[in-house]
């Protein structure tokens, strides 16, 4: 793995490797000293063309726990007001010696551009691009699901996939990079995915995706769901006639209190409720659902740091199978590798 751009082209072995490494990283997070010296002397740039404090601080915490130097670069440059070009920004970061660029961008494909051009020679991690993908979100979701699924099975999660798990994803699939990344990754891991959305919020072409599509949330729940993921729905979509009113939306496609109660009635006692955040309480998810014991919202946030540590570790340490959780791992701060650029030769 040179970059982490999408889950669509992530192999099963690489996906499981990231999840397993994240388990080891999570173990570090439970220790007294939460820091590993692994990426000492390496520079990770958080390049954000779109505000997302949540995702940025998650990557920042991950990089710092691996002892990397972190530079936060909030680039202006919306579709409306053009700032410095992506190319110029990338070349600037390259000149600064960035080893990894974590990029969040409002434009689909911007991370691919960074990876495909000669603008910068750094590992690129997609932290969410437009309505395309958000691979670390899908990985942390899968990590959360895998822990749950393994615990139910009474088996260790390391090395496991999600074969047989029934996952429903409901909401604005059309505009959701989280949905896309989840569909591909969950397919790779063997889960059965159902997308639930109003027809207006499903992309033309969704019928070719490796999942089932439903317009009916209650029917989907009745068929049995092990993980119910709610997607954020922006109220502005109402103004573009994607649905008549937010009231109608939440009645038909929101996870409200009635549906929370219905899980018990359906005998789905182990079903978890997931949300990538930030939540619109009362629109796509009720407060009772978000705060119920079934909710994994905070676990997802916690797991996000482990997943991002794993991604940074695997991309910057040459993608070996070396266990990550060893404090004595000193590969990258030996004497001959004092320059931030030197380790790159080992890629």
């Amino acid at each position, binding site marked *: 793995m040179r970059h982490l751009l999408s889950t669509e082209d992530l192999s099963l072995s690489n996906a499981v490797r990231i999840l397993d490494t994240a388990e080891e990283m999570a173990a570090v997070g439970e220790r007294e000293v939460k820091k590993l010296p692994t990426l000492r002397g390496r520079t990770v740039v958080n390049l954000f063309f779109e505000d997302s404090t949540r995702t940025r601080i998650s990557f920042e915490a991950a990089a710092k726990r691996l002892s990397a130097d972190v530079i936060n670069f909030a680039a202006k440059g919306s579709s409306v007001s053009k700032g410095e070009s992506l190319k110029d920004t990338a070349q600037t970061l390259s000149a600064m010696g960035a080893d990894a660029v974590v990029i969040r961008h409002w434009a689909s494909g*911007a991370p691919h551009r960074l990876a495909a051009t000669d603008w910068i020679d750094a590992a690129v991690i997609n932290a969410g691009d437009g309505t395309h993908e958000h691979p670390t979100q899908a990985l942390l979701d899968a990590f959360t699901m895998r822990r749950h699924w393994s615990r139910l099975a009474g088996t260790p999660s390391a090395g496991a996939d999600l074969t047989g798990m029934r996952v429903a994803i409901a909401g604005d699939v059309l505009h959701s990079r989280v949905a896309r990344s989840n569909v591909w990754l969950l397919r790779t891991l063997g889960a059965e995915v159902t997308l639930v959305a109003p027809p207006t919020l499903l992309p033309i072409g969704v019928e070719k*995706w490796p999942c089932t599509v439903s317009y009916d949330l209650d029917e989907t729940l009745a068929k049995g769901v092990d993980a119910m993921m709610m997607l954020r729905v922006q109220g502005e979509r109402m103004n573009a006639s994607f649905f008549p009113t937010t009231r109608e939306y939440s009645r038909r496609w929101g996870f409200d209190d009635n549906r929370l109660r219905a899980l018990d009635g359906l005998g789905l006692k182990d079903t978890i409720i997931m949300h990538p955040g930030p939540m619109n309480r009362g629109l796509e998810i009720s407060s009772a659902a978000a705060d119920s014991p079934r909710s994994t919202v905070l676990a997802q946030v916690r797991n996000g740091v482990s997943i991002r540590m794993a991604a940074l570790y695997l991309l910057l340490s040459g993608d070996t199978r070396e266990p990550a959780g060893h404090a004595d791992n000193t590969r990258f701060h030996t004497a001959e590798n004092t320059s931030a650029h030197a380790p790159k030769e080992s890629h």
Partner: protein
Amino acid sequence: MASQQQDAGTGAYLIRGAAILGGAPEDLLIRDGIIAERGQNLSADGATVIEAAGLVALPGMVDIHTHLREPGREDAETVETGTRAAALGGYTAVHAMANSTPVADTAGVVEQVLTLGRTAGWVDVRPVGAVTVGLAGEQLAELGAMADSRAHVRVFSDDGICVHDPVLMRRALEYVKAFDGVVAQHAQEPRLTAGAQMNEGEVSAVLGLTGWPAVAEESIIARDVLLAQHVGSRLHVCHVSTAGSVEIIRWAKSRGVNVTAEVTPHHLWLTDELARSYDPVYKVNPPLRTDADVQALRAALADGTIDVVGTDHAPHPSEHKECEWAQAAMGMTGLETALSVVQHTMIETGLMGWADFARVTSTAPAAIGRLEDQGRPLDAGEPANVTLVDPAARWTVDPSKMATMGRNSPFAGRELPGKVVATFFKGHPTVLYGKLNTPYRWLPEAPDPARNTGTAAAGRN
């Protein structure tokens, strides 16, 4: 028209043994701007001999759809560079689209473009006039004034933008009948394509790029052919890109609607799969479609449903392509690759021969633009607008070596068949032995006898 210009410093040329329209080898003697003789074993009689065994002689190509960018965007292309590219691509005439800055919506601007073209001298530059003032789609531009100007505008288009107001479109179609004009429509329903980035379908769903649905093109074409029939006008459909559009045009022609249609070389070959790279060199409007569309377009060009190949040559400065897909400009260069791409997609597939090639790249576009001295047969007494092609040549596209200022060729790195060996424009070789030669030199402007000769016969296609 030969009386008003001269061909200073160049003499006669004997093209020896070229396959005329791909037929049996014959000689062509070019002298004084015309084809003086056609036949076997013609005597050189002092003419420069071009040995053309193995080459194909074609009528000079005519592009119905070129963006020369001047005036206003000289950082992207100038009339000089764009027409050099055209000559190298085998063209002897191009229609310069109206979306310049200022917009070519007055007699003054179209005459300026005409003059720039004549000063350059590489091809005949035929200005297209805007349909509406400033391409704003609100009120008719001075269509009659542009038609009566020295530029003799016959093709009117807001290309880049659709004339989407049905009443305005109806009026434009009706009005241009007064001077045998044609409205060339960029068929794109604007509301259905707000923010559109690529073809809407399986690939856009995965890439998360806003879709440009086929129906946005097809619904406008359907409306326009019905309007054209209702008011008895001539309609030209620019850059048809979908299988559904082909069906509508086929239906319209079967009902006798006076409609012509165009396809670009890139839509004859490339598909939306290329967008998976997120490389904006593949971003174009209308977007690259699916393979089923490509196959339907090829069939339609072969059977005459689509009349012409138009390049939609759209050069952009590199900074407009070296960026995120959504930020990038739409458009591709095409003048220097069109012949090769059509050879690859239509001739080498067995769908067409060189005579058909001449029809779709010269005869038919000249007829749509009402260019009297272009798209003519390669016979004695005809204007010597001739392209010589080596169909056996193979070359690899390198945009940095092109004459156009645009580096945005989607064919970069591909090996293509066919190379232009020579282009004769009014008897003068603008391209010789595959290299740019010298431009044709127009005489200083003389009163134009073709001006104000009244309307041509209505109903001509």
